[in-house]
């Protein structure tokens, strides 16, 4: 059986417009990953361009749109995504395309940097580690594992609409990762910076982010937690209501 692979192609030096190019490939006997298939295609056509690094789903390089759904090529088996014998590969939606499946992620990274993705503490660090109970540490599970692949943010209509003002699910998940960390003492400041009508509140719970996250994380839930902290204040910190003046 043959596979019909339709690949988004665009080389800014040659092509006025992007186009879909069709490749016919013999269907491999065993189930392989989408990345393996791309590597096979590239052996024949060296001009095909995409990012890849770890090939095991932890580095976040090869996020792309696979038969209409964002995912990581390296951990997506063909058996899960083939529609009949068809496979359509496009770059992540909503970001400028540099070439083929490679998008310009500047805006995505800028949103990440905006939420100050680092621990901030008023207290001098002790000689040894700061103590944290396993129960408090558990609060970071489902948050810190993000690999910045951008599958979530680029599947989010609110991010498509306001990529400069809406922080987007990936960076908001990280915003909550630091809000939830008992070692961080800047909760008030962090919340104040998120309280405008766009940063968080453009999330309308569409849940595409949850649907596509290759690590099984739930940005929507984290955003819900942030919203509720903004409205009621977290109990221990008595945070004022901000952002709804």
């Amino acid at each position, binding site marked *: 059986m043959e596979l019909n692979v339709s690949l988004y192609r665009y080389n800014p030096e040659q092509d006025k417009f992007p186009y879909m190019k069709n490749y016919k490939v013999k269907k491999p006997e065993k189930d392989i990953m989408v990345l393996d298939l791309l590597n096979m295609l590239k052996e024949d056509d060296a001009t095909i361009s995409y990012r890849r690094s*770890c090939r095991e789903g932890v580095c*976040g390089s090869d996020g792309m749109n696979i038969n209409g759904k964002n995912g990581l090529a390296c951990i997506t088996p063909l058996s899960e995504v083939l529609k009949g014998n068809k496979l359509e590969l496009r770059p992540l939606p909503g970001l400028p395309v*540099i070439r083929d499946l490679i998008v310009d992620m500047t805006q995505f990274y800028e949103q990440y940097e905006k939420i100050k993705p680092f621990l901030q503490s008023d207290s001098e660090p002790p000689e*040894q*580690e700061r103590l*944290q109970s396993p129960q408090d540490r558990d609060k970071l599970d489902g948050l810190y594992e993000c*690999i910045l692949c951008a599958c979530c943010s680029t599947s989010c209509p609110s991010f498509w609409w306001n990529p400069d003002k809406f922080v987007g699910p990936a960076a908001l998940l990280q915003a909550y990762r630091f809000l939830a960390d008992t070692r961080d003492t800047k909760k008030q400041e962090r919340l104040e910076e998120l309280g405008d009508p766009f940063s968080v509140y453009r999330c309308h719970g569409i849940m595409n982010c949850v649907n596509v996250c290759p690590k099984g994380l739930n940005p929507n839930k984290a955003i819900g937690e942030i919203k509720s902290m903004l409205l009621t204040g977290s109990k221990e910190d008595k945070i004022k209501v901000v952002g709804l003046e």
Partner: protein
Amino acid sequence: MNKVINISKKNNIKEFDALIVGGGGSGMRTSLELAKSGLNTAVISKVFPTRSHTVSAQGGITCAIQSADPNDDWRWHMYDTVKGSDYIGDQDAIEYMCSEGPKAVYELEHMGLPFSRFENGRIYQRPFGGQSKDFGKGGQAARTCAAADRTGHALLHTLYQNNVKEGTNFLNEWFAVDLVKNSKNEITGVIAFSIESGEVCYLKAQATVLATGGAGRIYASTTNALINTGDGLGMTLRAGFPAQDMEMWQFHPTGIHGAGSLVTEGCRGEGGYLINADGERFMERYAPNAKDLAGRDVVARSMVMEILEGRGCGPEKDHVYLKLDHLGADVLNSKLPGICELSKTFAHVDPIKEPIPVVPTCHYMMGGTPTNIHGQAFSRNDGNDFMVSGLFSVGEAACVSVHGANRLGGNSLLDLVVFGRAAGKHINEELKSGGGVDNASNEDIELAMNRLNTLNESESGYEVADVKKQLQTCMQNYFGVFRRGEFMEKGVKELEEIREKSENLHLKDKSIAFNTNRVEALELQNLLEVAEATAISAMMRDESRGAHARDDFPERDDENWLCHSLYDPVEKKLGKRDVNFVPKEVEAFPPKMRSY
């Protein structure tokens, strides 16, 4: 792409105090130290930094922080590391790593690294292979600090985040082509290009730090990322500088059969064990005391013996099983969640119910550019070591040497942060006290641009993908877990042909924007340099030590080989270099028979 850079016109030149090539753990720990010091520092990385291979480290960072055991002692860690290295790790460097380690680990925690915790709130530590209490006399230690089984990911992201905080300059998706060397043999920076725009620049620096990681892609089967192509070593070898202990490659016992993905030693630390086709826990025979937690080289060889003697699993009898189901769903889900995920994806196995098919897989390069504990690179002239001004190396790319002939699990992440930090501190002091290098001439720069220009002008020649396959097959066949002289000689001959091809590649795609074909061709040439250094070093070391196991020389030969090997890329010859047996605070550990 511009073919020429002219110093007097100052076009395409970017100048820094310190330039770090590589955005993984060691590079970003170096840059963090330098950014905090106020020096103009830049990191150039061929991938966005969090895509670097450190992200794949799982089990943890080994360090005597006295959390699991309040009586733990860094000297015990040092003893284990010296023994693990099969006595060719430098004892001054190992002492430095083990004694400075706790500070470096606490700093990571202060930066926000989400370590797992014990009930008392301290950092969680788990047992790993080759660990002991009381200098091998007190049984198994638990010394590896962990963030579940995603410690590398947590560490790499934490370092990136703190570099963002300190305002480090990042040149992301830039590729370094070659070192620029001036007439005094000092390193003055690198020629590099933006992968996205194709702009070729001379990145000029008073200190150039190679933090380019390993080169596991010289083998067909490896746990390493596709980007691990030894770019830093490729550059130093082409510049005529030596590489140390290149025959020492670690084969990790548990790579997923068929896929190569790593399954952490932490699985065995948590109580998992290996079984053969008869269901026998065979490590009890090979290492009666440490069993499945013997040194990695020992476990990997035992697995291969089981397979060779017909007790392998599966229809081809070509792997063994890692059994975890007896640990129960709770332990697996809380301590080893990433492994559960990886096994399901790549082995179609749920470890809660079934064992994982595993096979020894190329994992780590113990060798590299020889350095001292400050990261300063050495070269050699008439049998004497001398420092290469302006050149530093840290992490897996360097050979400082703390791992000797076999690295212990969890010592890699410690190596990254301890020596990244040390190099940063040293460069800061050196540059602030007026150190630095002279300028390079236009001719020096032209020389460093040759490789790129030749490739860009190629009109015919060999295909990158074909030559890469040949190289990987050759290394896999002749330089694997067990080695034999006659096969290695054949391998070295084949590599001569492969070198000829790799110097005559045809770059079919000449486009500028994000041309990954160009990057892969340049990477292949780096792989070749590393492969050749490995092959010749392995062929010449006629003994068995640590990871270097020879059928034809099965014994360790301390009389002739209790030393580093030093590969000279110009003469393609192997020299010897003394191992350091002079630690500062403790008595040196003399060589003993190594058994687990």
